[in-house]
């Protein structure tokens, strides 16, 4: 394809396969080797670039996705021969050791400071939690970002930057691809149906955070790809009377930035805040999370307790399915060939209901859930439980609901004794598997134990104004 985009402030038309990974386009074809690759699967952040000013993982983006976009790599961050203030600050604070994570860190921090000029240390730590640094222990990186604006007089640039950048572009010699898989980005639904008809075996994708990992691992090898990211109607978030309708291509970050979601659906917002990393939240979409249908999918338990349903559409019409009917097992859904997930419909939860989501992973970010619990609790006047909905993730083939436990809790007092009393039954009912992350016994035990957190969280939620769900930040403040 002829790709037209702006790279480091220069409008370019590049002849490249739409199927080429952005990181390869940058490094090999354009010689912009400041963009590093550390894993190829979105787990390290070394390949971070800015697309239209926002950080993206170039290992999980196809060249075709860059059409019309403005790309900034580390080579283009400083507009003059002086270093960018963040670059100066990294240098001055000793935040650079081996330097391999540095470009990705600096660009991630650039995005953060554009959004939020004076973040505190816990906000900085959250913002860079998708960028692994193996050398520094992060402390000096956080220092550098915190003090980027005030304590960092400019540092003179290293010699000959401009020429070397130019030279590098000329030195680059792309190694061509032999699998020139077509990639389409329809801009209207009609165009989409035509493409699906013409390429019935094409694989549809949205954020690409799963698909590009599978393509790299050769787990899938579709003859064509159709990206849904440019379909405007899949990006809308709208309140429609008694429900909120979320376009399937809405990214997790867009959801978190929307007050309708954070104020009305805190349980979903809490789950989204713990999903993947800031990069993954920006690229991954709610529709993609549902269609992937992983037992560990972080949006599934909250959407389950919210009684969400999905709106499926094809060239022939549309239908609405409950979440339970939509997800039929690990990795499988009721989507028919030629059908797409258009939106997620979330009924408005009862006002004043208590929302809670907790995920147990093996670390505080970039974590795949080992067990998770979403809870929606309505309290009666006397403080007892009027209605409770509980959904567990990662302890069964898909979301686990236990109606008998919910029934047993109804009418009971909101205290630890109540929840402790149902633990044995929860243990009995859950049937997780053992895998490389955790054993079945641990998952079962911890999934049940998460219920014991509810009274504590409930009493905290009765206290005035706590920002929803910022549990990670909260625990660090505690620390």
């Amino acid at each position, binding site marked *: 394809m002829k790709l037209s985009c702006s790279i480091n402030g220069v409008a370019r038309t590049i002849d490249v396969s739409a199927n080429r990974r952005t990181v390869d386009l940058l490094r090999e074809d354009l010689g912009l080797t400041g963009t590093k690759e550390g894993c190829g699967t979105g787990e390290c952040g070394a390949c971070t670039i800015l697309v239209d000013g926002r950080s993206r993982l170039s290992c999980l983006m196809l060249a075709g996705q860059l059409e019309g976009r403005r790309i900034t790599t580390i080579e283009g961050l400083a507009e003059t021969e002086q*270093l960018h203030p963040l670059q100066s600050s990294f240098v001055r604070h000793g935040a650079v050791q081996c*330097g391999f994570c540095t470009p990705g860190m*600096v660009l991630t921090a650039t995005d953060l400071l554009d959004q939020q000029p004076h973040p505190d240390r816990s906000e900085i730590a959250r913002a860079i939690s998708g960028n692994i640094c193996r050398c520094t222990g992060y402390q000096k990186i956080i220092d550098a970002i915190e003090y980027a604006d005030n304590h960092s007089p400019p540092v003179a640039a290293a010699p000959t930057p401009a020429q070397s950048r130019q030279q590098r572009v000329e030195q680059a010699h792309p190694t061509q691809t032999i699998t020139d898989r077509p990639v389409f980005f329809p801009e209207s639904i009609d165009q989409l149906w035509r493409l699906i008809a013409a390429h019935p075996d094409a694989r549809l994708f949205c954020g690409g955070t799963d698909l590009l990992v599978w393509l790299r691992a050769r787990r899938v090898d579709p003859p064509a790809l159709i990206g849904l990211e440019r379909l405007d109607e899949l990006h809308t978030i709208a309140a429609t009377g008694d429900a909120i309708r979320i376009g399937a291509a809405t990214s997790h970050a867009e959801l978190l930035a929307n007050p309708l979601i954070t104020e009305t659906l805190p349980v979903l917002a809490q789950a989204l805040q713990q999903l993947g990393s800031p990069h993954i939240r920006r690229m991954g979409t709610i529709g993609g999370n549902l269609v992937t249908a992983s037992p560990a999918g972080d949006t599934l338990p909250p959407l389950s307790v919210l009684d969400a349903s999905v709106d499926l559409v094809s060239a022939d019409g549309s239908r609405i399915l409950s979440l339970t009917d939509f997800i039929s097992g690990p990795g499988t859904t009721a989507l028919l060939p030629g059908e797409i997930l258009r939106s997620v419909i979330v009924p408005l939860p009862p006002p004043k209901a208590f929302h809670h989501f907790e995920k147990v992973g093996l670390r505080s970010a970039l974590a795949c859930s080992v067990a998770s619990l979403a809870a929606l609790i309505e309290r009666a006047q006397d403080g007892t439980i009027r209605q409770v909905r509980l959904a567990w993730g990662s302890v069964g083939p898909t979301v686990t609901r236990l109606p008998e436990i919910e029934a047993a809790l109804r009418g009971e007092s909101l205290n630890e004794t109540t929840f402790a009393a149902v633990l044995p039954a929860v243990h009995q009912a859950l049937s997780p598997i053992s895998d490389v992350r955790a054993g079945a016994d641990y998952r079962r035990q911890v999934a049940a134990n998460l219920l*014991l957190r509810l009274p504590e969280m409930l009493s905290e939620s009765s206290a005035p104004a706590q920002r929803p769900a910022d549990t990670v930040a909260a625990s660090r403040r505690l620390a």
Partner: protein
Amino acid sequence: MTDNDRTVAIGESMIRPDALTKVRGEERFAVDHYPSGLLWAGVKRAGIPHGHLLSVVTDEAAKIPGVCAVLTAADINGTNRQGVIRKDQPVLVDERIRHCGDPVALVVAETQEILAVALEQIRFEVEPLEPVFDPCAALRSDAPLLHPDHPDGNALFTAHITVGAGENGFADCAEMVEGEFDLPRQAHAFLETENGWARADNDGRVEITVSTQTPFRDRSEVAEALGLSVDRVRIIAPYCGGAFGGKDGITVQSLLALAALHCPGRPVKMWWRREESFLAGVKRHPARLLYRLGADRSGTLAALSVEAWFDTGPYDHLGGVVAALGIEHAGGPYRIPHVDLKTRAVYTNNPVSGAFRGFGVPQVAAAMESMMDLLARRLQLCPLELRRRNALVRGDHCPAGSTRQGSIGLTACLDRLATHPLWTTREQWRAAAGPHRSHGTGIAAVAHGMGYGPLVPDTATAAIELLPDGRFSVQAGVVDMGQGNAATYLQMAADILNQPPDRLLLILPDTDRTFPCGSSSASRTTFTYANALIPAARKLRELLLARASEMMLVQDHREMLLVPGAVRHLPSGRDIELARLGSLLSRDERFVSHHYRAPAARETPSDNSNLRLHGFPHLIFSHAVHLARVEVDELTGRVSVAAYLSISDCGRIINPVVFSGQQEGAVAQGIGYALCEDVLVDRGQIRTADLATYILPTSLDVPPLETLAVSLSEHDGPFGLKGAGEIGIDAPAPALANAVEDACSIRLTRFPLTAERVLGALTERNNPRRS
């Protein structure tokens, strides 16, 4: 930090020159080269842990258009063996496969896609052999042998050290504690995976640009393995994108050289994907450790017994040296009169174990410092007090029997800890735990020896030159893998020559352009190289002052001073520009090199010459005391580190920011080692072969880190420094295990302390009758 355009002194935080290029993305790592006409090389790996390789079928792959070469062991003219002590690892398997990552065939192709297709087309025939995965089982007489030619079977290395009455020392102990510890296989997980590129010219000389810690040793190993004379191989070593020991020795070098020699004139690149790095790269040795520690009632240590098994995998990737360093440090930094130490590095069909920051010490320190807390608890003594009472001082015999001759700042570190708020407010911290949570504080004290030991010469040759343009070039043949040693060299030379650092040019390791300086490892990099550089720089200074005084008709060159860009005659204030001096002098007159050999221990506490060959004993030790503050979530078992303090004795600090950067980074890696990092292997197959399943700490998993130093000066150290690169990773595991016990009275001896293990122990604690 001070800028590079003014003069700096030792002890100032000078800006690292490499940070300026790295932060702009302009530093060219080995992986950043895509020369014109590039070919891609890749390896077909065995996928089975043990077997006889009967044949390799390469025809199908070779027929694919765009495949330039398909090579097997038959194409190798040299020994086809690599290794540092025992050369037992084939470049390409010739007869026996010993682990899943063993390379069976090498393919060179025009593109990565063609390469991938061709690798899938390679078939090989194998007669499976019984594998062995457990180091203890591997030592049994009926165990399958990995190297039938090795005289000691699967025992790559064994050593036994007895000091005082040895085991009999326990007879007089009032108290004795025992423990059995398991330490995991940790991956280096540097962000720049193993890679390089090579080109052979038509007369058979091959140049290899590679991410390595050991360019000069690589040159010899490649030459020997491929049957080349050493002058036919050139190794160029740019800055590494992390290494930590994982690039100490051959990774891609011989394969690249072989590929390049078969495609002369074409550059050939090899870049292991993350999964291949896990599969074929080295890891930290998993270890099993049996400890007994005895003391009198007052808490004076009396006897120690240690048995250690290090799982070295199928090849001697410094496994014996790791086991030797481990056992030398097994008794910690304490006086213990009666000691019995046994260590073994054992061949198995697991992934290859090798050098990793700490080099055997993190394993034994995890055990020993856990034992110290167990003993303190038994004696109802404060853990800090027990350590103070037994801390080594200069002149003491260490537990392995050698005499500690260098500076020891351990007591100073312990004293500093005693008054630190994180220690003095530990009861407040304990009381601040919320529901279902418990809080604790743990400490650990460690020592870490520097250098190669008594027999292997620990040497470096530094060279420094005044260039005709008035700048200086410093040739450093030892790699900077990110730790900042290269910047430290410039800082030292800049201080001696009184020049701003940006008037100094660093020549990175290149076997054609720099002198051999040994490996970037063993906490010896800066110590040894700087000890060569300082005399070279001083000699050059004297030489330039003398020449300048002659040119200015000054009698006494002591009236001359180097100032930025010039030599100044102080009484008259007249200058002679360095550029003028540089252009007037011939190169021989403005070039100085100096060779240095580090001092080595002369005493022989053990008559085991093999143990001495493997590095025992060391002469100079750094010391540290660490403190960890943890919160344990009793519902999930999750351990979070709330705050962390390290207090180190690494001699005098040259660049405080570089020093604290080393400690902070090592602590973060140590927290990973303690809590979450574990390369899980099931019958030789790695189950955590990517960064989604191998769990590295993120920015949200590392707490605020406080780094302090007691800045004693080491007599033999350059400007008084001692090694600082490794010691920071020795203490986090035991400090965290001790903190967890302090928090919730569970003692975990199997690392990492995963939430699953912690919750299991908490369940056991709450319900001891349950199995």
